[in-house]
């Protein structure tokens, strides 16, 4: 049984790496039949595969089409498994508001980031493209999101990122909501200039940095809770 379980998890990961949608779905069903916990199959199967995909992408051995094929395989497996997790137990690592900024409609990169973040266990609130500044902020406030992730391919729309940044500051939300930016025309320099909290060079790096942002916010919340308790 243990051997079989290990085998299935390994094959699940491989299906994601190979971008094999059909196999991923089949193996997800197999896993459930074999009594593997859905959460286990996700983290130690699918997500492990996505990690390998990320590494291959970093080394430029994988490229956009591979990423999206793997993403589709991941999605197929995820759809089977997630239904078996009771709603009350579905707990995301954090909430991320994601979108292409106002004035731009190029969203392939954003779509990849979305998949990678979902694979990593975050709840992604995808606002799509050409997203108004106020919409980013309202969504983050309404949903209590930890991070706003913004993307743009074009240079002229870089300014829209600054608008979101400025608006957050104006509303005094910078402690509660962190930002990460990325996309073709975006650079670390631009991140510094507008005072965003992180820059993701690619989807893999974006996930990594989002994790750090979410963790830092969670830690700050913990500290605040403790302080409140102590003062009581």
């Amino acid at each position, binding site marked *: 049984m243990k051997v079989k379980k290990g085998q299935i998890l390994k094959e699940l990961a491989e299906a994601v790496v190979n971008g094999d949608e059909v196999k991923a779905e089949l193996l997800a069903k197999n896993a459930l039949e074999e009594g593997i916990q859905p959460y286990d199959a996700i983290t130690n199967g699918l997500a492990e595969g996505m990690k390998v995909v990320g590494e291959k992408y970093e*080394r*430029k*051995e*994988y*490229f*956009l*089409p*591979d990423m*999206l094929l793997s993403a589709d395989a991941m999605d197929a497996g995820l759809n089977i498994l997630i239904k078996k997790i009771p709603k009350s137990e579905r707990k995301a690592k954090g909430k991320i508001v994601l979108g292409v900024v*106002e*004035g*731009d*409609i*190029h969203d*392939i990169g954003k*779509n990849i980031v979305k998949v990678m973040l979902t694979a990593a266990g975050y709840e992604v609130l995808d606002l799509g*493209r*050409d997203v108004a500044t106020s919409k980013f902020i309202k969504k983050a406030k309404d949903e209590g999101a930890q991070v706003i992730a913004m993307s743009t*391919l*074009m*240079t*002229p*729309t*870089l*300014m829209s990122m600054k608008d979101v940044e400025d608006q957050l500051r104006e509303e005094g939300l910078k402690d509660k909501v962190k930002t990460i930016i990325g996309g073709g*025309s975006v*650079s*670390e*320099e631009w991140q*510094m200039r507008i005072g965003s909290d992180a820059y993701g060079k690619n989807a893999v790096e974006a996930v990594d940095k989002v994790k750090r942002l979410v963790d830092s916010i969670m830690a700050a919340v913990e500290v605040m809770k403790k302080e409140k308790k102590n003062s009581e």
Partner: protein
Amino acid sequence: MTRNKIEVVFQPYGKREQILPGNTIMEASKIIGIGLNTLCGGKGTCGKCKVKVQKGAEGLNPCTEMELKHLSEEEVNENTRLACQTILMRSSIIFVPLRSRVGIQRLQTEGLEVPVKPNPLVKKYYVRMPPPTLHDPRSDEDRLLDSLNDQYSLSDLTINFNVAKSYPIILRKAKWDVTAVVWKNEIIAVEPNDTVKRCFGFAMDIGSTKLAGFLMNLTTGEVVSVGARMNPQIPLGEDIMSRISYAMMNGWDGQKELQTAVINGVNEIIEECCEKADVKPEEIYELNFVGNTAMQLLFLGLWSRYVALSPYTPVLRRGVDVNAAKLGLRAHLNANAHYVPVIGGFVGADNVAVILASKMLESDEIIMAIDIGTNTEIDLGNKDLIMADSCASGPAFEGMEIKFGMRAASGSIEKISINPETLDVYYQTIENTPPVGICGSGLVDAAAELFKSSLIDIKGTFSPEMTKKSKRLRRGQEGWEFVVAWKGETKIKTDIVLTQGDIRELQKAKAAIHAGAEILMKRMDITENDISKLVIAGAFGNYIDPENARTIGMYPDIPLEKIDFVGNLAGTGARMSLISREMREYTEKISRTVKYLELAIDKNFQDEYLKSFYFPHADLNKYPITVELLRRIGRVL
């Protein structure tokens, strides 16, 4: 308080200049007049402006984050810096290595000659009048207009107010023996005696990278001389979007700066063309311009912001007539400057000119035209319907984002072939000098040859098992790379390699173009077999190997005999609509009738784009000719 100037010397040129401290090396190079590569427009992202600070390094700002990304530890230690990131505070000596110098650019200006019967909007009429007497005291105006009507049956003419200021004197000095210059129905000049034979116009393609101008004899329709320059806006932003960002950040001042830069460039070409042909700029009576929609705004000094933001609306669609002198153009005081109409935000007057010159809108047969540039426009159809779209193919073909990439200039590798059995590499450089880098056509060749010889697979990924067969394939700092030229052969004394990342950039570019073509075909229900002619325009297009470009899937799988390489077709269209009134009017029809398709909202775009990343395509059934070719050389897919 005045600051003491510092002395900056650029080597190996030996040029020196006293300048104020606080300028970047890039800015100093501009003051001194040295051409440094600045593909990213000085943002520190392209890393193409490396220089070595030989003296004065102790007074510089520390390396910026951007610099540390581009410089090796060794380079940092020997004071190699990015010119755009380094601020000079004291006297310095800067050495510019070969790779950072702007080479002699290969500027392709020619395009097809499409015969058009000249019928210019400007015409000259030699006219003699009886002098006024007390018995015939008609106004100068009536005297001139009556005579023109008598001799040439020209009625309804008017006199330009500027002419009214000067012509009474000219008429008398010339003893009532003059030439009237008429634009449409307006007399824009009165010249002494017979000047009919000297009637010139100027046509120009304003590319974001390159300006190509043609001095034309308006009477005969012939090209008198040609000239070309790099677009002087480049230092303010490498691509058109960066330039609009520059304008957005600097407001009207930025707009003005961009406008002045391009007008100055145009004027230099006008002067060059005039000098070559012994023509005075004052003998140019009309100018005709094509360029993309954003360039139209920058050139005319109109607000450029909105064309860069979704939904990318143009300010003006119709053709524009404006007084040339008002724009600061070197031509006759009353000359008209015309900017050809545009189609949409990303399909501009240059594309209207391409459609005009390719005669698509008169054709029974289906034609596809691809005008390759940083932005590539694609047109498909015939006299019944033409649709156009535009895709961001990016600057890879200009050498940007490519590790050893460069523009097509002296020393760039422009042709590559690989023996599929021995894996020996052969290459050719422009002007046959030792290689400095790889230009667009070399990049296309390299990818195709690597693919044909199994060094990269159908996904564009290097095959590590091939290291057994060739020591050129190796692991570099950034993953797998292939040595195109060993350092002993090169002028820059390092191996010139093609990295996995370079192949990825090329894949993005070619996938965008192919997806753009594919979506038009799908939308219009046209297959490869229906296309009777594929027209490849653009300066870069002329130097690429048509078969290799097809092998990597840059355009649809169409027999080579149906593919025409036509060079600067936009320039051809600009000339046609300068010398012919009918062609001018026809551009308005093209602008009105061609249907613009926005790729980004097409639901199939992402799918088609990703399928097009493969060499030649994810669906090999779409590439029967190429598959057969690969089979012939024993390439197993």
